[in-house]
């Protein structure tokens, strides 16, 4: 007999709370726009924050309620933008998928070290000490601040230089913001030939700092059949919109600082 009373009390409580909760869930129901949930499912779900909203939930809400364009998400790519635009019934513009690229090839075999850096493994820290240990004051510091912020594990440090793994890079741009040297740029994924240098010093100074520094000799400018290359501050820059990836520039570059990034990744 003595066991029946507690069982009855617990069952009674359970029944009471159960009824109470089911009533409360109807009375205090929060109306959620179903579309937000659907859009949320279409987004990549990485919560990287590259869109500027608080994760994918925030962007989904903004797309539905505030009419923010789905291409605010740089990660999902063209297919996602198309899908969401279709769902929301809005026109989708042309989406250029982008990826990050480190404009430096200052590996340990190409530069010398001014000093031995000891201390916190952080590029900002090294940058405060005479602009880093490498002889080139523009180049990659190789301490992996970009790697630390990459939500997709797409960056490796090889021989003192950060390299982006193209397959993993979603183009969120977090590394671009983090880099104290501002040498990570967003480029269309289709772009191949790239000037892997950010040195804006005069040719002689740049060559002293790094074996593969761009010296601003304009050989590539002359060789380019589609006028895609400009030189400013002794540094060549290829305009990916005009570039046809013909590779003439890489052939003539005396410093060998232009190469096909597509080949690099697989090599």
């Amino acid at each position, binding site marked *: 007999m003595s066991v029946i009373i507690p069982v009855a009390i617990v069952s009674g409580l359970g029944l009471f709370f159960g009824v109470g909760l089911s009533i409360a869930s109807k009375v205090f129901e929060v109306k959620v726009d179903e579309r937000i949930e659907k859009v949320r499912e279409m987004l990549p779900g990485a919560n990287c924050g590259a869109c500027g909203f608080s994760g994918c939930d925030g962007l989904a809400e903004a797309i539905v309620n505030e009419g923010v364009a789905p291409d605010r998400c740089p990660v999902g790519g063209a297919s996602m933008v198309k899908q969401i635009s279709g769902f929301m019934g809005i026109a989708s513009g042309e989406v250029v998928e982008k990826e990050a690229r480190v404009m430096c090839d200052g590996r340990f075999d190409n530069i010398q070290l*001014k000093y031995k850096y000891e*201390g916190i493994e952080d590029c*900002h*820290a090294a940058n405060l000490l*005479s602009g880093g240990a490498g002889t080139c*004051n523009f180049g990659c510091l190789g301490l992996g601040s970009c790697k630390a912020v990459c939500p997709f594990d797409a960056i490796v440090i090889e021989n003192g230089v950060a390299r982006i793994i193209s397959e993993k890079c979603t183009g969120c741009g977090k590394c671009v913001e983090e880099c104290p040297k501002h040498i990570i740029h967003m480029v269309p994924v289709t772009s191949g030939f790239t000037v892997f240098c950010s040195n804006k010093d005069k040719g002689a100074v740049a060559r002293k700092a790094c074996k593969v520094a761009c010296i601003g000799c304009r050989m590539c400018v002359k060789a380019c059949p589609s006028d895609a290359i400009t030189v400013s501050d002794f540094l060549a820059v290829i305009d990916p919109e005009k570039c046809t990836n013909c590779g003439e520039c890489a052939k003539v570059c005396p410093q060998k600082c232009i190469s096909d990034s597509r080949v690099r990744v697989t090599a």
Partner: protein
Amino acid sequence: MKIRSFRGGVHPPQSKNTLECETIKMGIPEKVVIPMAQHIGAPCKPLVKKGDTVKVGQVIGDTESYVSAPVHSSVSGTVTSVDTRIISFNRPITCIEIKPDGLQEVKEDIKPPVISNRDDFLKAVRESGLTGLGGAGFPAHVKLNPPGDTNVDTLIINAAECEPYITSDYRECIENTENIVDGIRAVLKWTGISRAIIGIEDNKPEAIRKLEKASKDFSEITVQSVKTIYPQGAEKILIRTLTGREVPSGKLPANVGCIVMNVTSVSFLASYLKTGMPLIKKRVTVDGSSVKNPANVEVLIGTPIEEVFNFCGGFTTEPGKIIMGGPMMGVAFYSMDLPVIKNTNALLAFSDVHAGLPEETSCIRCGRCVKACPMNLLPFELDRLVRAKLYEEAGQNHILDCMECGSCSYTCPAKRRITQSIRIGKDALKRMANK
């Protein structure tokens, strides 16, 4: 006399090996490299070009900007180049390289300044090129002209010299005692400040005795010995020790009625008022485990540090680290080609054994850094916040009040790079503010 002190601080070995080394004058170097920014504030614009001949004391760099000080040539000779170099931190600075002709011809118009009022005095101070010689390098004429809403009643002369190894200020007290007193009196006279206190650590009894003797006729000057503990000589700490006033966060010493000047600065000021020769040379303590003959050397500004070390007999062992300034707050240098500048007070070279960093382990929350911090901050917490990139939160924890004295890193049993971490945080906050 009551010995005063403050809460916190550390006791690194003093290593003042060069206390008894009288200043030796170094000759004219092979070349001098004079940076256009040797101070806090706007860099100067070069006033000479390649091929120009210059004379000793000639102004070779100046700017319209108020927070700045002109730069003078320390030699007579020919300008061989004007280019941009990275001297320290991450700021390219225009440098003028001069090849001395060995004659040391003095610029004709150098004569003692004529002063009849406060404005003349401040103008003369600016023209002398004087910046804080203790280390920070703040232009002296700006410091001596505090904002109008402040009421300065105390001039504090910083002779504490709390950093290990450095003895250049001590030698100034011993060798130029009269100049120091003259300098203080000139500053008091023209700025209208009523009293001056010379703060000096009690490990320098000889200097205290000499200063007391020289200032005994002047009731407005008192010599106050303070406890030997690092960082006693930090500006805000010394104010607290000597006057009991605390400089509020983000405020200037002038807000609590004080102006702090380095002892070598006032001494230089006195000699400038007598001769009119601007700041072109500096006493530098050369010491460290790698240096053959540690010494106090009077060096022309712009002398490459390699020549200074060579003058002191070179190295006994290959140096693993060369520091400009003291071992606690000084800046490590990567090139022997870099010049001695206005606020260089020591050049230290340590062998690899003494320079190596111990391995860093995890924080054990022992709180020694909190005890050591003279600014009453929580260094371990700031370190954690910075490494987690929570810069704003670190800002709320007053990271910007840190003066980077290094007491926390020194005392940390886990060898955390706390000071470096705080430096990153301060830099990040500054960058965020600039955005």
